[in-house]
């Protein structure tokens, strides 16, 4: 098998598992919606204030949900020792990383799209530049997927990974939160920043973590 076939094999397997368990759709997406509803209650704000804060609240909800998705992605391999099976299979570690990242990105996209519908409804948010919004959303999700897969592999079979994962991952995702919030602010017309410049940062973040994951995943699989 070439690299692409290996990536498709791993991604297909993870997506098939997700299709059967529906964790992203039935658990993570509702959790994300719940978070934005609770943000609305907590801020007790009028509609204008909520619209102003929509980009930040949206991305906070996405990042919190992404921790659950990453945890699920790691748990799939940890359950019955499948991680060792992957080592024994001879699949290239870079393919395993990219395959898992692709599957995670696909699941996060579902959550992000559901959540976008949520903020449009609950916060009465509007979209002024849909191209910027979609481009920045994709860049942010790619970055979260790459960094999440990398940190998931880093924690691997650690017993305390449920609690350590958010402590390690959320600070790493802070640049995504900042850049995606600014880009969304521009796309939704709530801030006057240059959203495309922030979007470039999102893609740079995704590229760096993808490269780092591809290069280091072999060592991480061996050590965990």
């Amino acid at each position: 098998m070439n690299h692409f076939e290996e990536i498709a094999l791993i991604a297909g397997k993870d997506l098939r598992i997700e299709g059967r368990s529906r964790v992203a759709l039935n658990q993570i997406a509702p959790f994300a919606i719940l978070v934005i509803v609770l943000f609305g209650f907590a801020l007790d704000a009028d509609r204008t204030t909520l619209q102003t804060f929509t980009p930040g609240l949206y991305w906070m909800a996405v990042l919190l949900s992404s921790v659950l998705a990453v945890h699920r992605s790691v748990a799939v391999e940890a359950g019955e020792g499948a991680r060792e099976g992957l080592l024994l299979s001879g699949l290239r570690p870079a393919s395993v990383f990219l395959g898992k990242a692709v599957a995670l990105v696909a699941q996060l996209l579902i959550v992000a799209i559901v959540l976008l519908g949520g903020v449009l409804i609950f916060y009465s948010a509007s979209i002024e530049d849909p191209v910027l919004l979609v481009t920045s959303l994709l860049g942010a999700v790619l970055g979260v997927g790459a960094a999440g897969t990398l940190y998931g592999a880093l924690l691997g079979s650690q017993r305390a990974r449920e609690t350590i994962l958010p402590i390690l991952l959320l600070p790493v995702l802070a640049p995504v939160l900042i850049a995606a919030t600014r880009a969304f602010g521009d796309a939704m017309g709530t801030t006057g920043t240059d959203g495309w410049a922030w979007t470039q940062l999102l893609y740079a973040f995704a590229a760096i973590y993808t490269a780092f994951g591809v290069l280091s995943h072999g060592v991480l699989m061996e050590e965990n």
Partner: protein
Amino acid sequence: MVLLGRFPALAGASLVVEPGESVLLQGPNGAGKSTLLRLCAGLLRPERGEATVLGRDLRTDRRSVRSSVGYVGHQSMLYDDLTVGENLRFWGKAAGVDDSQQRAAADRMQIHGRLFDVQVARLSAGQRRRTALAVAAARRPELWLLDEPHAGLDQDGRDIVDALITDAADAGGAVLVASHELDRVEPVVDRRVIIEGGQATEKPFPATGAGSDA
């Protein structure tokens, strides 16, 4: 010697298994039987000493060793949310095994018909083990590493494992079996090695076949 966390294991073990040989590993719980099997599978790195599997050095060439062994440990390495058939296909493709080889291995482990469509999470322990054995068998390994292979199996399953050990050795492969079931394994292996205190010591089978650990 390997390190399990900070603790050394198999510090003085020396064992040679020739092609066509099947060896039973025995010893008390925690003696290092599973560690030795995992070491030979390339899942652990030797810290000191010499460790060569199928002519390849485990310190430098673990990746190529892994693809040539059939390791079945305590965990099935299967995905609970996938069916038996989906697991067999996934692991077969991952290892570069063609469909006919995969089907033959499944047949050999008596995995037929509706069992292919059952989710692994719903399998009994014995069915799960047979599926894990089918995944490993499809790769036609040169070295079998079996950790308590009879555990959870019914009589038919046990007979299948016995035949697998015998056939593998007859075909020129090597087999290492860790088991507490001396009576069960003795008829299908060539010799017996006791792992205890970090040492590997060859011992003859007891004349009475008492089934003890050592």
